């Protein structure tokens, strides 16, 4: 029963997420670009998406201390890092540039691809390719770091 629920809950969450994106207007990429481009026909709507989402989700975080484990068991696995590293900034710079260019961040890209349209499918494929490229880059960086620590200086 718990096994079934542990699959159903993320399916349901994914479905609600997708519907939320569409209701919010984030699957219309021209609306997203009109939000990011304050110098144009500015559409501040998507700021209200963040207000609604963060409003609900902060409440969930307030319930967290009362739980010893997630409802479905297992353990909490949440980010704890506090430091600023170049990767965080460079990654955010790159993501923003791409977001403003095509009006898709990862969630809307996945949901929009279900329309079967040529453009969203090209975007999704390129985005996944970018993620694979990152993995290759990351693996090479880890190997370089390991080699540096082994070589006598």
């Amino acid at each position, binding site marked *: 029963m718990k096994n079934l629920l*542990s*699959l159903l*809950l*993320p*399916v*349901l969450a*994914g*479905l*609600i997420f*997708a*519907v939320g994106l*569409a209701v919010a*207007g984030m*699957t219309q*990429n*021209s609306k997203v670009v009109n939000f990011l481009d304050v*110098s*144009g*026909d*500015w*559409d*501040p*709507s998507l700021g*209200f*998406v963040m207000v609604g*989402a963060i*409003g609900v*989700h902060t409440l*969930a*975080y307030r319930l967290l201390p009362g739980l010893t484990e997630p*409802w479905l068991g*297992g*353990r909490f696995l949440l980010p704890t890092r*506090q430091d*600023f590293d170049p990767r*965080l*900034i*460079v*990654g955010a*710079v*790159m*993501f*923003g*540039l*791409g977001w*403003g*260019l*095509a009006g*898709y961040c*990862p969630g809307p890209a996945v*949901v929009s691809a279900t*329309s079967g349209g040529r*453009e969203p499918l090209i*975007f*999704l494929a*390129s985005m*996944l390719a970018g*993620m694979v*490229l990152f*993995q290759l880059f990351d693996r090479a960086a880890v190997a370089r770091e390991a080699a540096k620590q082994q070589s006598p200086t």
Partner: protein
Amino acid sequence: MSPEFSPLSATVGGLLIGLSASLMLLGQGRVAGISGVLGGLLAPAPGELGWRGAFLAGLLAGGGLIMAAQPDAISFGLERSPLAIVAAGLLVGFGTRLGNGCTSGHGVCGLSRFSRRSLVAVMTFMFTGGLSAAAVHHLFGGAL
């Protein structure tokens, strides 16, 4: 300001996104960050594959539901060449993995737990997103 301004539907959509992220947090104990979910499926870690696959299936099922009920809600309303779309996709894919998160992971989840890293990431990608959107608008007349 744009005549398309829709604060009510935007807020309702945001509430649904917050509900989804909260179900993942309290039910599963995980952050509902889309780039993390996708990246985690491309580089599978033991025990983390099931919920990520299920969440992605839900996203796709939601997309199917929207296409059946309200197909106008999904539209590509920009003039972009395939080359520009590929460049944008590569930047979003590589950048979100390098920076450990996107609009959902840093934006919704990170800001909700008052993470300093996420605040810096959100301010950065909002700024560069505004820059590239404005650049296409002013330097290329809205088409690239």
